[in-house]
């Protein structure tokens, strides 16, 4: 069976062969299946960004192999180039990549590199802009005239327009206000629902991952420390804490409530759900 992304015994070192050699990834084995929405979580410096840079061959593993859609990236240059379009990588603060005169042309940069026809490119630009919720009149503006949140959307649209099989987003909500953050996150789950693509979401925020992901991969010191469903991973709250991570605040409240003897579920990851449960409890008590 082929996976969209498969890593076999991948290790990566920075400055190999020098006294400054640092192991950024240690013997990583990872399979991400078709249509999954996987969240990668980890403390700063745990190797998240190094890991996703392997998915499209920006970094080559020092040891092991990266297999994208059944093809080893080490095979030849064409395979590597094809991987750039199969795996759409959207880095942290992607608005830093905007450069064209208009938003539309910037979104078209990726598809143009794929050597698509002009009509196809136009079609994709419109579709991607609609996906991220950019109004059509913004498309003819300069990307530098957009607001911060709009820039972020335009940059994400630039990656989406390549219609990759796998969309990888590194901290897509970093630096946005709570409203903008929720919009981006719901946009991502919407994208996954409508296209059926595989999505990998990198974040250090447990709340973000819990609200959208089916599967959570926890990175710690260059290794995969945990890999499972949201419930499975969050049930190891002590271990997570030792890695400098934590379960969402609302979950912590509910865990504490359970310790105090209240009959509440432990798998509460969003404030909305938590509030609903608490309201019901209070209502029941007052009855």
């Amino acid at each position: 069976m082929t996976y969209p992304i498969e890593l076999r015994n991948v290790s990566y070192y920075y400055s190999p062969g020098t006294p400054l050699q640092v192991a950024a990834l240690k013997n990583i084995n990872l399979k991400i299946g078709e249509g999954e929405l996987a969240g990668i979580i980890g403390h700063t410096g745990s190797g998240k960004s190094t890991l996703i840079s392997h998915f499209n061959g920006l970094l080559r593993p020092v040891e092991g192999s990266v297999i994208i859609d059944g093809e080893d990236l080490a095979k030849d240059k064409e395979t590597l180039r094809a991987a750039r379009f199969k795996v759409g990588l959207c880095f942290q603060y992607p608005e830093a990549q905007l450069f064209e005169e208009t938003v539309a042309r910037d979104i078209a940069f990726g598809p143009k590199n794929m050597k698509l026809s002009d009509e196809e490119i136009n079609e994709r630009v419109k579709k991607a802009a609609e996906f991220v919720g950019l109004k059509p009149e913004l498309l003819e503006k300069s990307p530098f005239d957009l607001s911060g949140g709009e820039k972020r959307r335009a940059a994400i649209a630039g990656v989406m327009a390549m219609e990759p099989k796998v969309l990888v987003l590194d901290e897509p909500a970093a630096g946005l206000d709570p409203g903008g953050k929720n919009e981006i996150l719901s946009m991502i789950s919407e994208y996954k629902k409508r296209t059926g693509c595989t999505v990998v979401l990198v974040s250090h925020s447990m709340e973000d991952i819990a609200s959208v992901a089916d599967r959570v991969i926890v990175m710690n010191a260059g290794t995969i420390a945990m890999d499972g469903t949201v419930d499975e991973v969050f049930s190891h709250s002590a271990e997570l804490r030792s890695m400098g991570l934590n379960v969402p605040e609302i979950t912590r409240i509910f865990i504490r409530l359970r310790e105090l003897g209240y009959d509440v579920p432990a798998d509460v990851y969003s404030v909305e759900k938590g509030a609903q449960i608490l309201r019901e409890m209070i209502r029941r008590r007052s009855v």
Partner: protein
Amino acid sequence: MVRDITFGQYYAGKSLLHRMDPRMKLILTFGMIVAIFICHNFYSLALMALFAAAAVVFSGVPAKMILKSIKPVMVILAFTAILNIFYTKGGETYFEWWKISVTEKGVNTALFTVIRIIVLVVISSLLTYTTTPTMLTDAIERLLSPLKIFHVKVHTLAMMMTLALRFIPTLIEEIERIMNAQKARGADLESGGLIHRAKALVPIFIPLMVSSFRRAYELAFAMTCRCYTGGNGRTRMKQMKLHARDFITLFVCLAVVAGIIVLNHFFTRII
């Protein structure tokens, strides 16, 4: 790749050279570079080379690092050596074929120039190895401060230099980030002809310019917030003071220059 460019190649240490007043170090480095060009025979040059070697020993910078700084000028060395060997004529002829001949004078001049360049590089790299960029710009500011009489904004110039040096690694990182982002969108930076490659740089340089301007504004704003108003009335945390070691080094350098002049006088000119 881009990360490998070392800039401001400071080698941390506590040697005599590290502790010297950067102003004195700067002046003496300039003085000794001039002295290299005063040498006109192998004896005075040997004295100069000896001085450079002694300076390396006193600096505590490993010889390996010094060799690393000579590496980039290897091409220039080879080039000057070849030109001098074939184009300078005079003295005994060692080798002759068609229009090409190698003479005594040619070999001597080539050897002389090569040694001279090596000594030059060693002495100037010692300055950057033992002085941090900040110390260096500080020293420049102090040394140029008499120009204030002519309304030259010495402090501003020095601040600009410090900031430029400070932001080089930041910009290198930024270029790497942008390059990765554009590569992820399928930008092809490695293949194609010259025009294609030049065009491929547009998606890198425009975002770089934009972010540099943003950084500059933010920095200016942050400096204003901390009440930065330029050099007037500004005091320093680290005062520069001349110590005995500075004067001793000055004396040694003067002795070397005197030695060079004497040796120049007693032996025949080569160059």
